[in-house]
């Protein structure tokens, strides 16, 4: 099969080609096509849409992007980025690694005892080939009318699948890497559509680390903007417990649109931490739907921006049932002239009595030109709820800096300590192995601008 004949642009032909190229069953092709049609019906968001008002969506030229196929070849020896090898030393108790690096995928090494219990952890492509009937209902369960989600659902061609059978509890995290490159290294005018689906059976327990990154661009080389359109769906069945860590480290030519959807059933819980460390424009949606009594979610977020990066996060805490609780704690620190907007929605349905929903967003402005906005939105229809939200935006406390400097620390060292401390209050809650130690390291790298 000659790849050059493939239509790689974001177009209907691409949808058809993907289906035939991958030998997909007809139901899957139909799913893709119906998503594509809905995609066409949906207007492109503009800067005038509330959710997109700080994202420079106009700077993204979809007609000039070539979609690339993730995991077209299995490669035992595909070169993993050096920093990822380092990261893995922090996850030394992991339960399996799936890595897609450019077009190569490093096959998952799932310990035999987990496979024997019925655990599945593999690329999405393998899952569609080997576990089609198992994954099928999850491909269409979570609906969306968002343009970029529909685009992903029509064009996804990479990503990861995790399945943990009921009553299976797993200690070490599953680790997924999607590292975005093109033929000459850094992504250049290309698009990827990874989709990660995690299914935790009832009363199971597992943790998942999802790392999204791109190859850094070479200096003095004009690179075309590239698109990472990422869809993550986490299904947490009754009584199950899921801990999720996502780290986004895109380079400055990447426009990233990510959507994470946590579906939490009765007495189940999800605890997640999203760490955003780069990309030129980063638009992230994190939705948590508490679908039945006793469902809980605890979402933490860290954004460390620099230069002229734009971050826009929208979180939704959706309470569909009584006795549910949700908490969001989002912290943003901005250097240079980075910008951020955080919009947090709390939605409580009329039947969702006795729910608790909390939201906090704190923004630390380090650069003189940095800017942050915070917009809470409450849509509460039930009357017996506990609900609070709070936001702060401001520079580093000068008294804190003076205190640290008066004990010998230089101004940059003092600032670094304060920023790390600002994030520590969130990171300490992450209980996935030594994940937090790795995150401290990557935060320090970004603070030092390396």
């Amino acid at each position, binding site marked *: 099969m000659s790849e050059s004949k493939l239509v790689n642009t974001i177009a209907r032909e691409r949808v058809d080609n993907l289906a035939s190229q991958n030998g997909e069953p007809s139901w899957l092709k139909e799913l893709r096509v119906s998503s594509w049609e809905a995609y066409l019906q949906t207007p492109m968001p503009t800067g005038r849409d509330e959710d997109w008002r700080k994202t420079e969506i106009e700077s993204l030229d979809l007609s000039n992007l070539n979609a690339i196929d993730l995991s077209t070849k299995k490669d035992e020896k595909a070169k993993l980025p050096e920093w990822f090898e380092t990261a893995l030393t922090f996850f030394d108790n992991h339960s399996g690694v799936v890595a897609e690096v450019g077009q190569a995928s490093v096959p998952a090494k799932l310990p035999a005892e987990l496979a024997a219990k019925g655990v599945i952890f593999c690329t999405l492509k393998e899952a569609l080939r080997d576990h089609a009937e198992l994954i099928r209902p999850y491909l269409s369960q979570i609906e969306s009318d968002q343009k970029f989600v529909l685009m992903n659902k029509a064009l996804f061609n990479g990503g990861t699948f995790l399945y943990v059978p009921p009553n299976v509890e797993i200690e070490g995290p599953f680790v997924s890497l999607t590292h975005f490159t093109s033929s000459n290294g850094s992504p250049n005018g290309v698009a990827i559509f990874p989709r990660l689906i995690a299914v935790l059976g009832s009363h199971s327990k597992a943790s998942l680390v999802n790392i999204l990154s791109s190859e850094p661009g070479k200096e003095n080389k004009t690179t075309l903007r590239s698109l990472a359109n990422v869809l993550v769906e986490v299904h947490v069945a009754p009584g199950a417990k899921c801990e999720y860590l996502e780290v986004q480290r895109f380079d400055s030519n990447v426009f990233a649109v990510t959507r994470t959807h946590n579906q939490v059933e009765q007495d189940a819980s999800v605890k997640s931490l999203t760490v955003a460390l780069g990309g030129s424009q980063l638009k992230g949606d994190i939705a948590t739907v508490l679908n039945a009594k006793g469902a809980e979610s605890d979402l933490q977020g860290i954004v460390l921006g620099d230069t002229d990066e734009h971050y826009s996060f929208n979180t939704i805490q959706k309470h569909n049932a009584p006795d549910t609780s949700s908490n969001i704690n989002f912290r943003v620190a901005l250097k240079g002239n980075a910008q951020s907007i955080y919009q947090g929605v709390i939605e409580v349905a009329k039947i969702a009595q006795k729910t608790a929903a909390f939201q906090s967003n704190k923004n630390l402005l380090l650069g003189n030109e940095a800017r942050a906005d915070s917009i809470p939105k409450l849509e509460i229809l039930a009357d017996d709820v506990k609900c609070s939200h709070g936001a702060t935006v401001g520079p580093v406390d*000068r008294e*804190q800096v003076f205190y*640290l400097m008066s*004990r010998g*620390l230089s101004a940059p060292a*003092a600032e670094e300590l*304060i920023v790390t401390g600002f*994030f520590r209050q969130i990171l300490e809650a992450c209980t996935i192995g030594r994940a937090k130690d790795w995150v401290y390291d990557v935060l320090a790298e970004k603070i030092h601008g390396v």
Partner: protein
Amino acid sequence: MTAKQPILSVQNLHAKVEDKEILKGVNLEIFPGEVHAIMGRNGSGKSTLSYTLMGHPRYVVTEGKILFKGIDITEMTPDERARTGLALAFQYPVAIPGVSVSNFVRASVNAVRGKDVPIKEFRAELKEQMKKLGVANEFLGRYINDGFSGGEKKRLEILQLALLKPALAVLDETDSGLDIDALKTVSEGINNLSNPETAILLITHYQRILNYVEPQFVHVFQDGRIVKSGGGDLSKELEARGYDWVSQELTPSGVS
């Protein structure tokens, strides 16, 4: 007479905060081995003096200068002053959530000593000082001054100074808010800071602590300057007669 050079020499120091002049010509010399006390009412400008000595950017020196070990430090940043051997124990130490005491204290000791103290050596030193000051181990994991009681904050200040071994320790109202047991422990900690090469400047508005840390020199601070200086006995006289006595002595009746 010794030919020693003063550790601190403050010369006609004027400083303003937000365009309001607070320090109005402070003169003060402190030699190695000495303990000085500055006493004065609330609002007289004592903390402003301590902040200005340490180089807080909000306090702007408009006239005069500060010599420390013979070096003009008036233009130095606070961290440069700290590395030169000056330290301040704050009246109101600020909380820094997320920054643990152990992390910070180690970074601070390394910065001031200008080298990485081996971790084992550092721990031993830290444990010893903590024991002396009755500071519990769990302190190290807590965030700086976050949720600390008044007494805990003051102990942490003295603990840090004990590790930094400054040539001059300025202690701003370290005694306030301490019960009698804490006052004794903290005073002992202060006394341990002093040796023939170092000096102490104790700022207070109560005489109480001076029963435990005995100064050779006492200065009365009023309206942004030192208005009277004397020996250790002056503090007892102030305690007995109040600050009004100094003011009356200085202000002839009818003139204010």
